[in-house]
């Protein structure tokens, strides 16, 4: 059989494979270059960028937990002006797609950042991922991410500013992700990505102080994969636009679970901290898996979960 075709199409953009590296876990590309062949990735989602540079939170910013980690980086980023001046042109040199992740504290800031990037867009800029779900800064948009109305308004506003891919990144810290996915679809988003980190905390039992500078932070890594899968499945059942699955992916097998649950693409996050080329490994592992399973296109197993009829009937 012919080598499997890993390419996937999202809106009008074709990615060479469905494996992206997640925002905040791969810098702006330059840092990991020595360890990871960026051009073997479907694309790079850049660290959340805001209008002004952000210094980030004071230490401690990261704490290890059981099969996971908490972070409270505080959206440390160079700001959109340096981003378009240095970071974007650097990534433009690589044969892979760029998705610019944006974080802000007001609808206007989101729009201004997006339009500023749009004005300096490079050829391989595929689109934008809107972070309305950062749990570890007070003005990180989670106020948007937990309100269906504000999510829909913001999506509508940003939709008007770009024809590139508009991806809304959803938070898992809600009772149900469905109305949020539906709001994004109504407002014209090209896709939703989920999940961002879960609110978590860790305490130093000798000092009685929180281990993270911000008391609570964002939980990520293998520990959260089952939760992420359930939310992707939930979103898939409730909206019609493409889904980018995120959460605890380390191996190709993990990624395949997300595809079966309904994700069209996936992002590899925390795993990059352990294996800087985790994304590339997942991509090549995926090719191997497809070959062994005689699957020619990723789309063949996207949203292919087999649920017994009586369970479907019972509403699962």
């Amino acid at each position, binding site marked *: 059989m012919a080598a499997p075709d890993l390419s996937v199409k999202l809106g009008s953009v074709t990615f060479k494979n469905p494996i992206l590296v997640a925002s905040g876990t791969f810098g702006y590309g330059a*840092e990991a270059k020595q360890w990871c062949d960026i051009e073997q990735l479907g694309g790079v989602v850049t660290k959340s960028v805001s209008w002004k540079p952000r210094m980030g939170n004071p230490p401690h*910013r990261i704490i*290890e937990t059981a099969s996971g*980690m908490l972070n409270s*980086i505080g959206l440390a980023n160079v700001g959109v002006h340096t981003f378009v001046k240095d970071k974007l042109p650097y990534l433009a040199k690589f044969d892979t797609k760029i998705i610019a992740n944006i974080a802000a504290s007001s609808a206007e800031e989101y729009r201004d950042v997006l339009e500023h990037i749009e004005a300096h867009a490079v050829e391989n800029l595929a689109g934008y991922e809107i972070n309305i779900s950062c749990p570890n800064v007070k003005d990180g948009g989670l106020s948007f991410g937990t309100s269906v109305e504000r999510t829909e308004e913001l999506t509508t506003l940003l939709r008007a500013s770009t024809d590139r891919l508009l991806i809304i990144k959803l938070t898992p810290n809600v009772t149900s992700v469905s109305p949020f996915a539906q709001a994004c679809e109504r407002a014209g988003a090209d896709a939703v990505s989920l999940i961002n980190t879960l609110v978590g905390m860790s305490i130093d039992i000798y000092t009685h102080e929180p281990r993270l500078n911000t008391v609570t932070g964002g939980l990520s890594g293998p520990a959260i994969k089952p939760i992420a899968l359930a939310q992707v499945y939930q979103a898939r059942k409730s909206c019609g636009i493409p889904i980018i699955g995120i959460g605890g992916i*380390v191996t190709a*097998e993990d990624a395949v679970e997300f595809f079966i649950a309904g994700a069209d693409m996936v992002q590899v996050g925390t795993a990059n901290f*352990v*294996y800087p*080329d985790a994304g590339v490994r997942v991509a090549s592992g995926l090719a191997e898996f497809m070959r062994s399973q005689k699957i020619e296109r990723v789309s063949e197993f996207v949203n292919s979960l087999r649920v017994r009829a009586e369970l479907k009937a019972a509403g699962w």
Partner: protein
Amino acid sequence: MGDLSSMTPVASGLSIVTKRHVIAPGLVTLRFHNPHIARSTKEGQFVNVLPKAGFLDPMLRRPFSVYWTEGDEAEIIVQAHGRGTGILAETREGELLDVLGPLGRPWMIDSEDYMTAVLLIGGVGVASMPMLTRALERMEIPIQTFYGARTKSLFALDHLQNLHLATDDGSEGYYGSNVMLLRSFLEKGSLESPKIFACGPTGMMRAAQSLAAEFGIPCEVSLETEMACGIGICQGCPVLNEESVFQATGRRYRLVCTDGPSFKSEEIVI
């Protein structure tokens, strides 16, 4: 976790442990076969090591200075501190280590501003000093080593030079802090245009910082912060810049993993 062995990246060099040497209870050196690391590591650089290869709990790598290199083999010295180092310290010969590196910037040894290298060492801060010593010897820069430990049995003296030892319990050498010992030398002026290379507990680093300021001599300190990636992508290892540096660069923090691990002592807040 899925089966990692099936996808452990090359970058994370699985390296077989060829020698485990116990210096004292909970203090061991691990020698492993890794040509890339052994041949390219410079003095002061570190590696990021998984506590147990193939397991993702503990999930994060642990940073360790490269203690020594020879041929295709490199060595780290591990002080059992918490769970990860506890597991690592028990690694047996023949087992695999998952090592990423070399990482970070080397010690700044070719600056013009000194004639005598003063190595100020506290406890396991010794880790990067044998490599530093070898590099300085090659440049024929005289070395004086002020090495403090809790007690006699905890010294790791291999490859070091011109030792001035100090112990908290007086079991060996000077009874007290190595910083006090160094101060006495500086007051006597018996060190010719010295530069301090310091690595040790936070307290010792601060003392070194103010000592250097007081005597107006250059000082470089190697810092420890928790790290996830070790390569600059997680932003998890910030060190606070001195106000002056912040004003000049607009950067409030630098990253220990890529901007460090060693910094000019006057430029950072310890």
